[in-house]
């Protein structure tokens, strides 16, 4: 008689029993305990104010604890969208973003690619020099730049006069002021962006350029066909950061150097929001503006995340 040998793996019928609710909760406890401090502060400083901003946008309130908050419905939103200064502030914001991109993408990429050819020590020194402006506090930088750009005694104007050019009132001339703010912000962002690009370059496996050189590619072909495409997720990250943060980065410079002027020529959406909220003591209006800008920037961010997922190659 032929007999089949028994199975090597004993199979029990039905699904294995799930661990009890208390056992599962106990499993969750340690990770939660570790996360708790971070989560608490995230709630306190980010999510709670966000919720309160949204809530405030439906009330009229002058920020005085003693004065009552009166419901306003969607009035604040109507006022924000109908504000005459809004158009200029949005346009200036777009100008800031576009004009800062060369400082956060093009120049850093060129600098990082060229710096790669420097030998060890001198490269580190060079990167440190480039990064230094990023470490200067925006307020201090603004003070120094205000002195540099002073119409009568500033070194920049002295140099211009020495060269035979007309002195410029950089921060009071509506045609020049926004350019000055952009240049100063760009100067302070350049180091950070170069560092990010350098990190992106360092993350590219050395085998790719080596393989390309054996495949017969010239240095420029390697940069154009291999390095830059592999750098695209980093570039996209910088474009996203510039888009979302240039409004905040230019804020202290605007506040100290031009206060949004002359005649709104340098204001951006956040500065406008701040002026209404904290200069005119109109919390409901500021709340509504904040909510609108939050949603607007959120949509832009979502678009970038979608794009970056499409562009990632996951080098492995």
């Amino acid at each position, binding site marked *: 008689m032929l007999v089949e040998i028994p199975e090597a793996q004993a199979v029990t019928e039905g699904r294995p029993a799930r661990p009890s609710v208390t056992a599962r909760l106990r499993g969750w406890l340690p990770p939660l305990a570790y996360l708790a401090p971070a989560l608490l502060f995230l709630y306190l400083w980010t999510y709670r104010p966000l919720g309160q901003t949204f809530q405030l946008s439906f009330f009229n309130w002058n920020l005085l604890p003693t004065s009552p908050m009166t419901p306003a419905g969607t009035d604040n939103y109507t006022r924000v969208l109908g504000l005459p200064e809004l158009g200029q502030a949005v346009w200036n914001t777009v100008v800031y973003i576009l004009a800062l991109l060369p400082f956060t993408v093009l120049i850093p990429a060129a600098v990082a690619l060229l710096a790669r050819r420097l030998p060890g020590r001198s490269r580190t020194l060079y990167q440190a020099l480039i990064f230094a402006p990023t470490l200067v506090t925006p307020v201090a930088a603004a003070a120094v730049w205000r002195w540099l750009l002073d119409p009568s005694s500033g070194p920049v104007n002295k140099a211009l006069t020495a060269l035979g050019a007309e002195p410029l009132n950089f921060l009071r001339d509506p045609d020049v002021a926004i350019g000055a703010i952009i240049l100063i912000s760009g100067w302070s962002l350049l180091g950070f962006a170069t560092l990010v690009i350098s990190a992106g370059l360092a993350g590219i496996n050395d085998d*790719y350029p*080596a393989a390309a050189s*054996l495949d*017969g*590619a010239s240095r420029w072909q390697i940069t154009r066909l291999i390095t830059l495409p592999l750098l695209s997720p980093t570039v996209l990250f910088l474009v996203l950061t510039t888009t979302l943060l240039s409004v905040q980065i230019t804020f202290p410079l605007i506040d100290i150097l031009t206060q949004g002027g002359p005649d709104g020529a340098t204001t951006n959406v956040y500065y406008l929001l701040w002026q209404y909220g904290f200069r005119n003591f109109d919390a409901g209006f500021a709340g509504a503006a904040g909510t609108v800008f939050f949603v607007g920037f959120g949509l832009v961010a979502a678009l970038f995340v979608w794009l970056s997922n499409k562009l990632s190659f996951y080098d492995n």
Partner: protein
Amino acid sequence: MGRIELDQLTRRFGATTAVDRVSLHIEDGDFVALLGPSGCGKTTLLRMIAGLLPPSEGRILVDDEDVTEVPPRRRDLAMVFQSYALYPHLTVASNIGFPLRVRRRSKAEIADRVSEVAEQLELGALLRRRPKELSGGQRQRVALGRALVRDPKAFLMDEPLSNLDAKLRTATRAELAALHRRLGSTFVYVTHDQVEAMTMATRIALLNAGRLEQVGTPAEVYDEPASVFVAGFLGSPPMNLLPAHVRTDEGRVLVTAAGVDVPLWTGETPEQDVTLGIRPEHLTFAPLTEEPGARPLLRGTVCTIENLGSEEIAFCAVGDTTVAVRGARPLGVVEGETVALTARQERVHLFDAGSGRRLVWQPEPAFATA
């Protein structure tokens, strides 16, 4: 043509010498395996041939032209990297066609060549995929395709099979050997795997600590290892190596050690310390009652037995050394058993105890004994 000549090639990293004065002639059509343990300098040597690493000293000649200072892209060599280095943002077709694209060939020509190569390597269905959508074996074939798409002077390969599973590695080994036969091109192949070197190479260059230990056909390096290092590197398990002493006894050369009695040639030789080497598969069991003197004889105790399925390996304690015996299963011994081992005289290898170099018997010329 693809003749590669290395002349006293040296590479130092700080105080360490990774490659030490290596001179090697690689003939056109050779399949040379650079074999050695990790850190022996084989990859450094290959990267110097490729031009990715400048040598500290020495010269590299390709077809009699000194290319030591020539950049990689002008050396006309193709390389398959251990990581395959497939460009992650390009499709399989663009990866394979890359060498032609940077040479500014026409789109039609590139497409033709790519589909030709893809067909050879059975990649036709994968041409539009990206590297991350491929299995390890497929990636390896794409890397090979990128090397094959042009007609380079030589193919350099840096452990191309090390990322594949055992079964695929065996199959790819055979494919690579067949490819070499078909193309007739020069292959320089870096590996730490002796099986890859033995099965594919026409010549093996064994490296140890940056120095060339032996260059020869697979049979030569296996049958006549030039040093203790080569003997102890090749074979699985490698050659048994026992410290022993050579003397002359009644006109016959005799090698002895604790539990070892190996009579060899008739003749005389000065006494010296040697390392005695016998491969595990050349040892057989002898009757316990056998008297020493007639043929090589080792006595010991079986410590453990390893079952390999088709074969068994018995590890026996002989003196202070463990001696492996490999044979068809069952070997017919049990653990703890006292055994006698023998081997044919021509299977016995001797190495100088000091230098580790191989010792060969040179019969004295006839007139000297007359």
